[in-house]
């Protein structure tokens, strides 16, 4: 027992020394951290994000490196799993900042993990770009409307997305009465449900049922029975791809036949696997359409397909764009340190990414960009409409 402990301590010290050597030798290396949802309730999101991050870094390294201020740097990537937990997102961000010494962080993706991690990044003065988080709070200080200095995102925000879906329900589907079922324990779902409600009611529609559940629930029969009783024209489910199939299946079993609408959290290929044929024909808003791609996007889609064998989803595209923003920031700053990355990010006013054109207003970490509406058809998401900002 004692001998075992001794060996363990020696190995621990040795590994620490090795790790220290590793950090000491990195002269011409830019270290970038990624926090992703590799395990937990939305692992498909983390997997896409990891794939796109590795692709973005590989492209730079294969081309010889990134030229910053006349010097070429290789990129070193550190990927941390947040296990689908808010507290682990914060601790993964601190680990990257204090132990791996990264100059910037990409991720987490879901708002409920991006918000706690962004607090850590802001207080440690390290740039964090969340690819997929759409809740306004991610880039705002506390409960104020004042923007965080070090937090950016590649996605549009929920007030916009809520408005897009509400307008779509009213104008394209001709709905007068809508019902909403959302996870009240998750920042993203709650935010977008409220923005949808506000716009839908302002534009003359009625919200006939506004029902909630909490993360981990699988039985939605009580809420769906209530929704059925309220007789809506359309049901909005701003929930994650792992829960939406259950909600739709249970609704069908209760005899609900009206169309369902979703938000960008639907946009994983897993949705179709889990739904079978039950999600056929429903619509959701998201960041880009793989089947109606710009030349920039086509190039990325081809590279991603070649590397991983499947079409990149919106998380992959947004993660790739986050790295694109980061490369731009590093180039325009001309120096590799945390403050320069922040200065470089602030200099970007316009960026043509895979997910379309992003315009950053001065002082804000939120890009102004357009959304698309996709429809589930067979085993694919098909472009249906565009929605300008």
């Amino acid at each position, binding site marked *: 027992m004692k001998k075992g402990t001794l060996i363990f301590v020696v190995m621990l010290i040795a590994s620490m020394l090795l790790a220290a050597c590793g950090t000491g030798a990195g002269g011409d290396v830019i270290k970038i951290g990624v926090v992703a949802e*590799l*395990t*937990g*309730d939305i*692992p*498909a999101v983390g997997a896409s994000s990891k794939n796109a991050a590795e692709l973005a870094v590989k492209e730079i390294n294969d081309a010889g490196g990134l030229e910053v201020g006349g010097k070429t740097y290789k990129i070193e990537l550190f990927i941390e799993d947040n296990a689908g937990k808010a507290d682990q997102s914060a601790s993964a961000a601190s680990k990257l900042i204090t132990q791996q010494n990264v100059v910037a962080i990409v991720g987490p993706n879901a708002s409920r993990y991006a918000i706690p991690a962004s607090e850590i990044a802001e207080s440690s003065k390290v740039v964090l770009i969340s690819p997929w988080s759409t809740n306004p709070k991610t880039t705002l200080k506390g409960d104020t409307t004042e923007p965080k200095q070090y937090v950016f995102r590649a996605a549009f925000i929920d007030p916009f997305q809520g408005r897009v879906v509400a307008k779509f329900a009213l104008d394209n589907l001709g709905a007068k009465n809508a019902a909403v079922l959302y996870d*009240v324990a998750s920042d993203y779902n709650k935010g977008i449900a409220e923005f949808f409600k506000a716009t839908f009611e302002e534009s003359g529609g009625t919200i006939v049922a506004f*029902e*909630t*559940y*909490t993360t*981990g*629930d*699988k*039985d939605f*029969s*009580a*809420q769906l*029975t*209530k929704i*059925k*009783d309220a007789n809506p024209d359309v049901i909005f489910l701003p929930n994650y791809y*792992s*829960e939406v*199939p*259950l909600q739709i*299946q*249970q609704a069908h*079993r*209760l*005899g609900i036949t009206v169309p369902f609408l979703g938000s960008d959290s639907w946009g994983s290929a*897993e949705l179709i*696997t*889990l739904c*079978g044929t039950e999600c056929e024909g429903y619509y959701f808003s998201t960041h880009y359409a793989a089947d109606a791609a710009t030349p920039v996007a086509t190039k990325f889609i081809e590279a991603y397909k070649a590397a991983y064998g499947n079409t990149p989803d919106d998380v992959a595209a947004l993660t790739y764009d986050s790295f694109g923003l980061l490369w731009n920031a590093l180039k325009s700053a001309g120096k590799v340190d945390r403050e320069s990355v922040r200065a470089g990010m602030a200099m970007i006013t316009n960026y043509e990414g895979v997910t379309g054109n992003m315009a950053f207003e001065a002082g804000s970490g939120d890009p102004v960009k357009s959304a698309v509406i996709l429809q589930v058809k067979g085993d694919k998401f098909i472009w249906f409409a565009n929605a300008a900002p």
Partner: protein
Amino acid sequence: MTYFFQQSLNALQLGSIYALIALGYTMVYGILTMINFAHGDLFMVGAFFTFIAAVLLGLPFVPTLLVSMIGVALLGVLIERVAYRPLRNAPRVSAVITALGVGLFLENFTLVFYPYPQHIPQLIQNTTWNIAGVSISSLQIIIILLSVGMMIMLDLIVRKTMVGMAMRAISWDKAIIPLMGVPLNLIVSATFALGTGLGAAAGTMYALAFPVIDPYMGILIGWKAFISAVVGGIGNIRGAMIGGFILGTVEIMVAAFLPSTYRDFVAFALLLVLLIFRPYGILGKPRPQKV
């Protein structure tokens, strides 16, 4: 009124699942006065065995149910043999911690093989009938009938067979009864097999009703079933059944008639109040402590 009947049917379905899982907690407690906190995760393993049997082996419903029940029953017996039996005379806290550890082990072990949520195909041709405005699906009927059937069988086993008599005797006095020739370890194993087998049956039915399964699915529902067992009077088999149906009904009805955000806190506040008036649960009796 249709609305009320529809919600009652929802409550019956959820309640029968809670009741089946609650039985596992209550049986183990009755025999060993130990709370098997890994039971919720055994329920999860039952759901994954269902997935393996139905998807990888391509079996139909009844063999799938049997594979899941027998597989998890064997696993339950193994866990008792390896993890709990050596601690039978250790302080109660050690056994509880071990159970929590076994639960975490099962979750993370499953996570290694299935990091993604998995989809369970429809094993039963699901038809939905509309009777006077109330939607009833064949799956709902099967779940309710099968659960009630299993509970009646368990009740008969415990009250009418030799094994059941031995179980009741051991739960009465663990020290004296083995001296009368009742094989303690065998009866404990049988209890674990029965309890976890029922948990696995609940897992299979749950996986069919809510066909997206993940390694963490057992945590929340395990807690709720445990609460059902306590409300019914832990250690009492009929109490666990009643407790399960009460919790299912309260949860559904609160969400049905109040804003659904209130569901959990109103549901659990009601149960707390109930425990204040019946601290040993609905059917539980205070056990005299021998000093």
